[in-house]
Every structure is written in C-alpha cells, then in structure tokens.
C-alpha cells in the first residue's frame, strides 16, 4: 500500500504531508532557549552600545592605559583599536562578548540536538515516526543553522540600530563581515557539537560549552604566544575576530576554508553514526 493508494481510498491526502514537520517541531522545542540566550547576550551588547555616551569620557582616559598593557592589549586587540572610539569599543569589547555568547549558544544547541532524544527517552517516539534517519538529522541540523542565522542577523541589526540611536558611524561593511564570519563560527562550533551529540546517549551540554570555551581561549592565547600561533587554524574564533575585521586585516581565508572542511566532516560523521545507531 503506497501513499497514493491510500489517497484513492480517501484516507490519505498527500497535500497534507508537511515535509518540514520535524524542523518546525525542533524550532518550537528550542525557541525558549534561543530567546533566553539572545535576549541576554544581544541585550547586554545592545545595552553597552547605548551606555557608550555615559562611559565615553572615562574610556578616553583609559584608552591609552588599555593600549599599553602588553600581552593583554594584544590578546584583545586594544593595541590596534582604541576603546575611546565607538568602533574600537565595539570591536574589542562588545563584539567579543557577542562572539563568545553566540559560540556558547551554538555549542549548547548542537550538543543536545540528537542526544537529548535518548537521555530524555523520547527517541522511541521520534524513531517510530515515519521519517528516515537522514531526514531527522537534516531537519534537526537545519533548525540549528536557522537559530544561528537568526542570532547573527537580528543581533547585527540590533547593533546597527544601536549605532543609529547613538548617532555613531560604524562601517556597515565591517559589521556585515563580522556578522557573516561569526555566523560561520557558530555553525562550525554547532556542527562539532552536533557530531558529539550523534555519538552520545547522554546530555553533552558540558562538553559543548567546554568546546566553545577552549576555542575562545585558543584564539586569545595564539595571538600572544608565538609558539602556538598555528592554533589560529584550529579555533573558529580567530577568523571572526572583530578587531581584525575593524582594522581591515587580511581575512584569514585559510582558517575559514578549514572551518568549512570541519563542518562537512562533522556533519558526515554525525550522519554515519546516526544511521548505524540502534534504538536501545
């Protein structure tokens, strides 16, 4: 009996088949988490932009001090951009917070997407629905990508709105490059954690957060310790660093290409593992 046969019997209507049922289900499941992370991270960053005028005077006093703090200044890009300007303040402080928050959100989302069904015992309900594992995997992954896009697009728009309110001019091009590269970073971190999730039957949120934090620490450290400079090819926080973008450093295409490769490998491994997994 095929779906077409059932249609003839008046019982099955193929027009009603919602091909993205699992996608919308996953979007609903993760909406609350997204809203919390988005409001906290983007809210804080937006607030910092609006507070700029009230801290501008003290920042201009501290700008020189911050730029002469040696390794610390180098690590956070304050040797190249002054926190006394809106662009410098945004790139060295706010964008870094946004990147770290976005990376952590993607890590939490990715690390739970598949394994939550097993530790929440909902796998049997999900697995017996008539959908191939590839379809389940693809729609879950797509929901993660959607939230990463929403996080970056709405976040970037909020910051652009904040600059407009403060009547500050910040390069739209820099802002767009920052948003796009941070989106790639979120997808990379999320994909690695998605892969971890496929191999696990337990809650791996802790490991996911650890992955994001280690990558962030790698970026900070590889900027000040020449011996570990090659970490820049490993950590996704390197190619989305706002200070580099706002000072118009050459975009690290090598790191970004590695990121695309890592995303594809993570997705491939997740698919391989998810297909061979038995329901237990």
């Amino acid at each position, binding site marked *: 009996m*095929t779906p077409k046969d059932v249609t003839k019997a008046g019982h099955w209507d193929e027009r009603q088949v919602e091909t993205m049922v699992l996608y919308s289900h996953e979007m609903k499941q993760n909406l609350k988490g997204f809203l919390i992370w988005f409001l906290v991270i983007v809210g804080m960053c937006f607030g910092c932009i609006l507070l700029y005028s009230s801290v501008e005077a003290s920042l201009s006093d501290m700008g020189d001090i911050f730029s002469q703090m040696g390794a610390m200044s180098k690590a956070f890009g304050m040797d190249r951009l002054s926190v006394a300007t809106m662009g410098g303040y945004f790139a060295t402080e706010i964008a870094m917070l946004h990147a770290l928050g976005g990376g952590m959100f993607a890590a939490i989302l990715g690390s739970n997407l598949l394994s939550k069904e097993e530790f929440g015992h*909902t796998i049997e309900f999900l697995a*017996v629905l008539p959908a191939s594992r590839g379809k389940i995997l693809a729609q879950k992954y797509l929901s993660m990508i959607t939230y990463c896009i929403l996080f970056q697009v709405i976040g970037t728009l909020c910051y652009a709105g904040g600059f407009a309110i403060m009547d500050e001019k910040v390069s739209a091009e820099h802002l767009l490059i920052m948003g796009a590269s941070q989106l790639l970073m979120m997808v990379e971190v999320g994909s690695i954690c998605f892969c971890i999730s496929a191999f696990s039957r337990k809650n791996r949120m802790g490991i996911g957060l650890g992955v994001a934090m280690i990558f962030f620490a790698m970026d900070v450290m590889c900027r000040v310790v020449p011996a570990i400079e090659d970490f820049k090819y490993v950590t996704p926080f390197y190619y989305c660093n706002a200070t580099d973008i706002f000072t118009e450093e050459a975009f690290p295409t090598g790191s970004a290409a590695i990121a695309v490769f890592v995303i594809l490998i993570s997705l491939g491994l997740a698919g391989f593992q998810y297909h061979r997994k038995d329901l*237990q």
Partner: protein
Amino acid sequence: MGKNVIEIKNLTKNYGKNRGVTHLTLTVEEGEIFGFLGPNGAGKSTTIRSMLGLARFQEGEVKLLGMDAKTQSVEILRQVGYMPSEAWFYPDMRVRDVIALAAKMRGMDCSAEAEMLCERLQVDQTKKIEELSLGNRKKVSIVCAMQHQPKLFVFDEPTSGLDPLMQAEFFKLILEYNAKGATCFLSSHVLSEIRKYCGRAAIIREGKLVKIDTVENLTKTSAKHVRMIKDGAEEDFIYRGKVNDLLRELAGHDISDIVIEEPELEDIFMHFYDGADEKEAKE
C-alpha cells in the same frame, strides 16, 4: 490460510557481545491477534525493533506487510501502529500537540479517529505531558498508535500501567480494529490477556523461540499440574513425565491428598521460562 503479514526468518541480532535474539523464525497471518511471551530480557523488544527497522540485525530476513525491514523501514513505520513499552514524550508539549505531531508525520488527518480514541480512553488533550501519570502517558501512546487506523498493530507491553477499566477498553478497541481486518502483534507478560485475546502465541526465552502454537494447543500438553500433600508437606509442581512413573515414585510415600490436572497457560509459560524438564515447583 491468510497471507503472512509478519515474516521473520532466522533473525539474529546481537548488541556487541550481548545477546539479543538468535535464529528466530515466526510468521503472523493477516487478521490474527498474535501473542509474544517472554520474561524480561528475553529479546521481545529486540525482535520488535528489528521488525520495524529500528535495530540493525546481523542475520535473517524480516518482512512486514510484504516490505523488507532493512530497506523499507520508513514505509513500514508509516503503515504500522507501534506502541513502545515505554511511553515517553516531550514533557513540555500538550497531549493534543503530541497526537497531532504523530499524525502530521504520516501526512494524514487523523483528527476524527483521535477524538474518538481520546474520548473512549478518557485522555485529556489539554494537559501537558509532564502533568500525566504513566497510565495516562500510555493512553496517549495508544492514541498515537491507533489514530491512523493501520493494518498492523505492534504493541510492546501495552497494558502495564493501565487500570483494569482502561485495559478492557484497550482490548475492546483491538477487537474492533481486528474485526475490520487489522492484525495485532502483542508482546506481553500478562498471560490472561494472551489466553483471552490471542489465537496463537510464541514463547521466547534467552533470545530463542522455544514454542509457537495456537493458545489452545499450548495448553494441550502431556505436562500435568500436580498438587498434593506428601508425607505431611504440601507440594505443587508441573510434571512432564509419564503418569505411571509418577505413581510409582509416589507409591512409597504417604499421600494424604492429590490433584492431577491439565496445566494452566501460566504453568506452561513458567515451564518454558525456566526450562525445566521434568517437574517444576511452583512458588
């Protein structure tokens, strides 16, 4: 003889070094209500998961509704109503949304049937899953398995957690669907259910099929249920040898009372579970 709705040939499924099921072969014909009996860990759920393509088996061939479990599992799942032994759903979802999600995944409008089932099983669709007891979650699981009116039902321990009234209503529904031509594969511990509703049953122990027959034939056996007071002590066991041998063995004892009768299905079930050969003391 009807066509086979379930065909399992030589099914072998292991979880690494752990045993699942070994060389299991059985068929279920269209329109049957088939019982599948076995103790915990016997391999009942493994067999069911292999049937539905949810577990990859190493050997054998499984066909449901003429479809291959390895290559056509999505279509099998679309056309089968499966109720797992554990009734877990997303805790923050409302009952009506869970039921609708299961229907949407089949691309069907099952609202009328779902309404009828919820009414008969007294399911409150407005409640959140996290507010439901095990019994009520089981009822939601029944609705999800039945709402699309499948031709084949597969139930894994369906009545555990249900109160007697709901158990009766559940079997009433099964009989109604069965009367319309549906086949039912019922995995259960509850022998009275099997005896009352199933035409045939299979008994599985330690991953192997030990017996498959009609429920009537399963109870027709040379085994005898013996209850007696021997030498002042009460004894109760299943005897599978010749009655003459039993009488000879008892000749030298003081027997103050003795009843030798046909065993109940429960007795046979216990016999197959424990694998005793000659006689078996009951609890």
